[in-house]
């Protein structure tokens, strides 16, 4: 808790620094503030609805369903489900981390989790369209197609490492 508090204090100092920069026209401070706004705008818009959906997912999604598609009882098709789910996750990894955590506690295997989180940053549909229009379709196609086997392979490998230690992801809503 104290750590969280110190983070809020740092944030307060940051806001103060930015305000002063704006007042005295301190260019360095203003540039940081402008960068901050670029990211903050997205986060403020995306995070609240995302966490509402994650909460609803928590109470409605049945463990068996998740296990069947992402967990022990699933087929290798789970990698395709993970990638598809990732490409439809709005907000990239910022949202994918909490979703991955929820999926794990519903019984998803670690290899599904790693595939999901890793591809969430790679297969964002609007970003990919932008990339293809600026750097060429061939560029994006090579990049994305070649990444699929590497990501799945890497995720399976990581799962092997973690299986021995019975690794568990942190629990975030303890009093439930």
């Amino acid at each position, binding site marked *: 808790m104290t750590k969280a508090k110190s983070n*809020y204090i740092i944030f307060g100092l940051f806001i103060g620094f930015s305000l002063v920069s704006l007042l005295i026209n301190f260019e360095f401070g203003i540039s940081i503030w402008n960068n901050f706004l670029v990211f903050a705008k997205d986060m403020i818009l995306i995070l609240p609805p995302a966490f509402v959906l*994650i909460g609803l997912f928590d109470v409605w999604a049945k463990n068996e369903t998740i296990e069947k598609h992402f967990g022990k009882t699933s087929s290798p098709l789970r990698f395709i489900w993970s990638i598809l789910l990732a490409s439809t996750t709005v907000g990239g*990894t910022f949202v994918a981390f909490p979703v991955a955590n929820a999926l794990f506690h519903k019984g998803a295997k670690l290899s599904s989790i790693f595939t999901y989180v*890793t591809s969430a940053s790679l297969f964002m549909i609007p970003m990919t369209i932008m990339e293809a229009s600026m750097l060429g379709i061939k560029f994006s196609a090579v*990049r994305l197609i070649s990444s699929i086997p590497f990501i799945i392979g890497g995720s399976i490998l990581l799962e092997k490492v973690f299986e021995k230690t019975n690794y568990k992801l942190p629990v975030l809503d303890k009093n439930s």
Partner: protein
Amino acid sequence: MISLYIVTAVALVVSFFFDPTKTKNGLKKGFMKFSKTLPSYLKLLMLISLILLVSEDLIITYLGQENVFLGLVSSLVLGAITMMPGFIAYPLARILLNRGVPYMVITGFVTSLMLVGFVTYPLEKQYLGKKATILRNLMSFTVAGLIAIVSGIVYKEVLF
């Protein structure tokens, strides 16, 4: 973005219609997770704002160097430690391409930028735990390198 709100609204209404108490519980859980990690999100935002400020010049200098191998390594490293939105990253990549930087180096940069999250570490750690975060990022870094090499082969920039 609007679709996210529509989906959320529909899900809420449907959920509430079927089971109001469950819905309330869900909202409570969602809020609890959100408030627990909000400080990490804020920290992340501050870090990114600062890094973004110094990274652009570094990227142009280091990625454009003569030695392709060194260019690739610096593209992977710089991609890993920085983070920028697509509307800054892609025009930057376009500039590099026009300056004659090989596709391999640009692929390495773009992929490492997305896959490896040095600054997202405090956030990822909260959801996946320390060990998984570190190993997943190491794996991603390797994958980014491999993808860059594949693209180098496709564009005939490296020959084996």
